[in-house]
């Protein structure tokens, strides 16, 4: 029977990919889950802390606040850049794309320290603002949440620009023309026609940026100056310094479940397959 030999070939062809996923993703993940319910003693004791520890609540809240703010700012700024890219000449578009990818290739450490140089009390921005007389005393831009958000937004921008650009590039200009021709002002045409048509790109960008932000720890650690602790940074400390593996794996697992939950909630309102490009 041709069907079964066809099926056999199909499975053989995807076997390497499946094996890779099992060895490098699924197996370690199961191990993480396992540790979270066995260290230091078997049971759900680690997870109990999620509900009882005020300290953890504070970290979760900080994480959520920073990630939401970062996502909102990144997507708005990314939309502006993507919109410009979709409406300039091809040559300028290539130039813009190159600049965006260039920052993407720079080490996250280099960028975080560069931001510290710019934002610190005696940094370029503060000195410039004082020089032109706009401010008397330096603004506190680094070693706090403002610095963390600035650094994160900068890092995440390409992740917002690229999906939004990919989406709005496909919006036919005739819809905007139709809106204008039917009496809509430029703003009405944008708000009621263009923006709704770019919804899949916006949602993809939001998801991507938010999920990525959750796992961030280098930028918050450097730009937060140790004052802003996000969940990933805390996990790192628990793994490497305080050696509380049970707690660290519990938080990792919780983070993962949180992302799945978020996907499930968003998936109720939008077709995620379409958002992420499969039609």
């Amino acid at each position, binding site marked *: 029977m041709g069907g079964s030999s066809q099926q056999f070939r199909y499975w053989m062809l995807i076997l390497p990919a499946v094996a890779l996923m099992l060895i490098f993703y699924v197996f370690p993940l199961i191990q993480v889950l396992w540790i979270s319910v066995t260290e230091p003693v078997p049971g759900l004791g680690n997870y109990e802390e999620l509900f009882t520890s005020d300290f953890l609540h504070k970290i979760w809240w900080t994480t959520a606040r920073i990630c939401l703010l970062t996502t909102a700012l990144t997507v708005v700024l990314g939309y502006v850049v993507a919109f410009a890219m979709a409406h300039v000449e091809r040559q300028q578009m290539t130039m813009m794309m190159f600049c965006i990818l260039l920052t993407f290739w720079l080490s996250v450490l280099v960028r975080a320290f560069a931001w510290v140089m710019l934002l610190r009390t005696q940094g370029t921005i503060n000195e410039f603002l004082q020089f032109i007389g706009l401010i008397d005393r330096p603004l506190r831009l680094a070693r706090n949440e403002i610095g963390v958000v600035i650094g994160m937004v900068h890092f995440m921008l390409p992740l917002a620009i690229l999906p939004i650009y990919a989406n709005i590039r496909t919006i036919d200009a005739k819809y905007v023309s139709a809106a204008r021709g039917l*009496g809509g002002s430029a703003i009405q045409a944008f708000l009621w*026609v263009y923006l709704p048509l770019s919804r899949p790109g916006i949602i993809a960008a939001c998801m991507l940026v938010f999920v990525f932000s959750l796992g961030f720890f280098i930028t918050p650690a450097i730009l937060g100056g140790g004052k802003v602790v996000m969940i990933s940074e805390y996990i790192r400390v628990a793994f490497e310094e305080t050696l509380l593996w049970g707690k660290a794996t519990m938080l990792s697992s919780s983070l993962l479940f949180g992302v799945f939950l978020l996907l499930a909630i968003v998936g109720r309102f939008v077709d995620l397959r379409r958002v992420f490009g499969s039609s």
Partner: protein
Amino acid sequence: MPEGTPGARSGHALSLRNLSKYYGATAAVDGVDLDVPRGSFLTLLGPSGSGKTTILMAIAGFVEPSGGSILLDDKDITRLPPDKRNFGMVFQGYALFPHMTVADNIWFPLKVRGVSKADASTKIKNALELVQMGHLAERFPSQLSGGQQQRVALARAIVFEPDLLLLDEPLSALDKKLRADLQWELKSLHQRLGTTFIYVTHDQEEALSMSDNIVILRDGQIEQEGVPGDLYEKPATKFVADFLGKSNFLQGKLATKQADTFAYVCGGQTLVQKGAPDHAKVTGDILIALRPEKITLTPQRPSTTNAVAGRITAFNYYGSAYHFQVGTEAMGELIATAPAWTCAVEPSIGNEIWLGWEPDASVVVRDR
């Protein structure tokens, strides 16, 4: 449209004065003067690149003219943005907003004018009834057929009672039978609304069947304008005769001239032609356009003034008519058509037949 009909009262007149549009050094529209009468159905007809769409886009406000002006009832609207012109437009490919239902699409032009959906509901309903789409108000455009989308686009363009309705090849994406049906509907809609329609097409059949006036464009200029019958029967140029319908072209030399006819020699044969309005000026080389359906086909030499012998080289059967290609010694290959049920000649290749026509069946045309 005659005075006293609704259109003559409610429609608006549009004029183009020396309108030009240059892209670099190329003129897409080159000094066009045009008057669109109140409530009329005017068609801009021409091949691609003739400037017809550019003119329509300039009227709509999407293309800024390089020169000249656009007047609506003597008011200059040349520099007005599209949304301030109050024109309805049916786009090529319809451009229905894919994220809105049919009803919301039709609400859109009212919404931008500050009308709430509740207040707009009667108008939306009436517009949908007008195009027989009342039952599909809650569908999305992607759930509609091409013909249904076309009707929705039309309803959306008329719901706010625009001063003008601009239609950019609205039927080009539809199949032949549907296109023919919608031609009837568009024409009757025009009569009921009384709005001035400006219609762009490259389809000569659409232009002939629906328009009050046709403007034929070529290379950004008006080649000829007039009522459909005049353009078809009295094309001024070879281009018009060729573009509007089909035509044979007979190249000849003037032989003798009478009061209102002249004789010319074409391929060694002398033929008689009724004179054109500028009969006096006819000299030397002349070009005659002869419609294929105006040729009588007979097995024997006919009694018509002009007669040419030939041999059928090819023929097509269309149910209602035969189309023949006939090889003649004097003037090469000619095309002729005959109603199938009264066709006097045996349709078979190689059959020797006669082609006959009277002096007033053909017209003198310029080769531009």
